[in-house]
């Protein structure tokens, strides 16, 4: 059902331009990795704190306020580079399990980070340390799944 859409994606000029160039795909891919690194820092600064380590003198909520602009910037950078990468090989991706795993977990990770995790951040640490630790671990697991599935696309 989605295959016609993926076939149409293959005709979009942006993907054509990426395929037509020797350098474009690797350069965009490298920027994708740079943005991934920033995302890692923005995620871990908060999640390490939830796990009871890292910057303990500041509340998780305060750390999230500090990290949020970088988190948003990293996601914007990852999506902006991810789209041309996708458009350059949509049919290969259509048949890639790693791609479908990545694209399914990604919205969950975003939703978790911006809608669910902030609720736990605001809670007092005294009563909710265990719940915070679970949320921190879950957040790391979700983002690592997205990144690992993304890397695995290249091996399939």
């Amino acid at each position, binding site marked *: 059902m989605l295959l016609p859409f993926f076939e149409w994606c293959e005709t979009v000029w942006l993907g054509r331009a990426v395929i037509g160039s020797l350098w474009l795909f690797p350069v965009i891919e490298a920027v994708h*990795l740079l943005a991934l690194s920033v995302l890692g820092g923005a995620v871990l600064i908060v999640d390490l704190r939830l796990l009871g380590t890292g910057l303990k003198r500041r509340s998780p909520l305060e*750390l999230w306020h500090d990290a949020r602009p970088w988190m948003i910037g990293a996601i914007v950078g990852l999506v902006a580079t991810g789209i041309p990468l996708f458009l350059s090989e949509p049919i290969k991706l259509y048949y890639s399990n790693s791609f479908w795993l990545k694209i399914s977990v990604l919205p969950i990770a975003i939703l978790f980070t911006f809608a669910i995790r902030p609720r736990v951040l605001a809670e007092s640490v005294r009563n909710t340390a265990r719940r915070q630790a679970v949320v921190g671990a879950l957040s790391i697991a979700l*983002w690592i799944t997205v990144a690992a599935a993304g890397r695995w696309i290249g091996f399939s």
Partner: protein
Amino acid sequence: MSLLAFCEWLMATDNSTALRESLFMYPLVESSHVLFLFLFVGLTVMLDLRLLGLALTEVKVSEMVDRILPWVRAGFAIMLFTGVLLFYAIPVRTYQSVWFRAKMIMLVLAAINIAYFHYRVYPKVAGWDADTRLPWIARRAGLASLILWAGIIVAGRFIAYNWFDCDIQPQSAFVNWFAGCVVAATD
């Protein structure tokens, strides 16, 4: 024994061959090397952004160093371990890669920057620990770190591409010199 001869010897060892030709081990090591960017470069960036006054400005610099640097060190240990394995699997081509060589040069520069920060900048932290805008020597160290690690990531990713490989000739004289290619004389 030249370094090239050493790499050729390394490549012929059984374990190097096994890793190079393994169906899952090599991709696994390679993926780990990439994924630990998340931890290692991610937290390095946060440290650098703090030095530049662009993030976590309410956190003392000394707290960043005490609480975040141990994670950065652990991340680097894993990067180094997986990186050595990747070199071990494909020694000759990697040794003669312009991107690998550029990456190693930038790693040395990053090490110098870290030593400079550790011995010249950080001992004076008490004077500006809680400041948002740090002295230029501290900001400079953060900026140099950001630029160098970005360059290291890009160069590292490009090792996978064969644009400048020695076995694809002709290459420019610079590439052949920088990559240490052994080019047969043409008549």
